[in-house]
């Protein structure tokens, strides 16, 4: 029964390869998208931290 499921009447190679290709492509697309989002979030965070730091420095300079 299980063997029949995997062999798919002799067409298992084509069927499983199709599903595997679709699965791997979509996983790749999903993780690449998440990775890109996380990297741009980090850049935005660094940018905002630097901006906040420069603002506090200029505030200190103004005080003097």
């Amino acid at each position, binding site marked *: 029964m299980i063997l029949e*499921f995997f062999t*798919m*009447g*002799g*067409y*298992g190679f*084509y*069927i499983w*390869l*199709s*599903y595997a*290709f*679709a699965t791997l*492509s*979509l996983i*790749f*697309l*999903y993780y690449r*998208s*998440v990775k*890109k*989002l996380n990297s*741009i*979030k980090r*850049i*935005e965070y660094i*940018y905002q931290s630097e901006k906040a730091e420069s603002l506090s420095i200029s505030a200190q300079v103004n005080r003097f």
Partner: protein
Amino acid sequence: MFGIFKPRTFFNLANNSIFWLKIIFAFTLVVGLVLALVLSPIDYLQKDTVRIMYVHVPSSWIALFIFLIIGVSSFISLIFKIKVFSIYAKSLAPIGLVFSLISIVTGSLWGYPTWGTFWSWDGRLTSMLVLVLSYVLYVSLWSLIKNYNLAEKITNIVGIVGLINIPIIKFSVVWWNTLHQPASITLTAAPTIHSSMLAPLLIMFFCFCILSLIIFLIRYKYEIINFRVNKK
């Protein structure tokens, strides 16, 4: 009515909905795969290879539909100068590219046991290949052209010109003699496939739509932040 198209509204929608979309996706994926690989019957002519249909057909539909959205968004962006529509198109393009590749590869893997060949230069297959190349061109232009406004303008033109290919793909099986079979499901007539095969097909299509939406929302968030960072 157009409030949903505002970047901030869409951004908040993306933040709030991704978790629930992932749950719906997981549920439909399990149900769809069980129906497609276990419970759906084999075809009397194509035997078990018909199970490739549950990946191939939804991928083709989504690839076509996404390019249609890209074309319309490009048109709106080019004519009415509404920037957010080109961001929608840019976020959607890699998703359409992957689904069009899945369609071509799974189609070839289905074609070999049924037609005896992986590839044939017939109307449907060739026009689908043109769609893949349009996606490749669209995505490449965005990454190759560093000037944002120029890239936006050129990709908008590619998106609009690429629209010509959509009716060609749709009617290729009617206009020319092709190895590819005519559509079993159309918007204007009752489907010609049995409900036991139609159900998994529609569930897998719904599942892929949800996944596309999740990835689109992630990519849209990336594009908005990227736009903001580069503007500063």
